[in-house]
């Protein structure tokens, strides 16, 4: 199993076209209502003896439009709830960050980060 296949599998599992657009890679220009799979930090850590398995960390960015506080927070909560429902059993949910504002060009997005880890064997 390769890192790329894990990342794309994670993106596939977290796809919900009725709620957001899913990017399996850092998007050039994040859009509102998008879910973006990015590497975490540290990205890869040794896990087992003989280095046969490693722990790969991912940071999933959940982006919603910055409109009014109540509306964007509710939208963010809905999307995070759905993402937790969609999280595959082989991915371990670590934490969800508080929302932060992200400026993209002249637009603003409200973004929360979901940190997950996946054990990968070679």
């Amino acid at each position, binding site marked *: 199993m390769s890192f790329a296949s894990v990342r794309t599998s994670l993106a596939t599992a977290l796809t919900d076209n009725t709620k957001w657009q899913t990017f399996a890679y850092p998007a050039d220009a994040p859009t509102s209502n998008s879910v973006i799979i990015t590497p975490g930090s540290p990205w890869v850590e*040794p*896990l*087992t*003896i*003989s*280095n*046969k*398995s490693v*722990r790969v960390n991912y940071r999933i960015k959940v982006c919603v439009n910055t409109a009014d506080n109540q509306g964007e927070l509710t939208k963010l909560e809905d999307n995070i709830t759905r993402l937790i429902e969609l999280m595959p059993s082989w991915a*371990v*949910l*670590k*934490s969800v960050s508080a929302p932060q504002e992200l400026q993209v060009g002249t637009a603003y997005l409200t973004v929360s980060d979901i940190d997950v*880890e996946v*054990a990968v*064997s070679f």
Partner: protein
Amino acid sequence: MATTILNGGTLTLTINAIARSEQITSAVLTVELTRNAYNLIGGTKAFKVVDNNATLAIEAMQDWTSGTSDFMDALWLASATPDTSIPFVLTCNSQTFSGSIFPEYPTVGGSGNDALTWSVTFQCAAVPTKA
């Protein structure tokens, strides 16, 4: 002589002739000697080893699956006959340590925000041999 720095990447472990390095996150083989000290007249001491004990401590991922080939199932089945030892081979930088351990039931479960792991200290049947 230059020091050879080793890390866990040089370790491999087989249990019952099956490689388990993909599940095991830590493996430590320890041999302890019971050494008695005797105070002799004249102020000197004499030492005598009267016993020894070897253990193999491991930390591992829980890889429960429906099959019987995974580490957890194999240990659970082997633990049904806990007095029957099973062979192991631990290598460290191509140095081989061979012996037998008595199986232990693995633990099941863990916290919700972490990968499921478990740890155990196996009793060795005898001091392992080094090749």
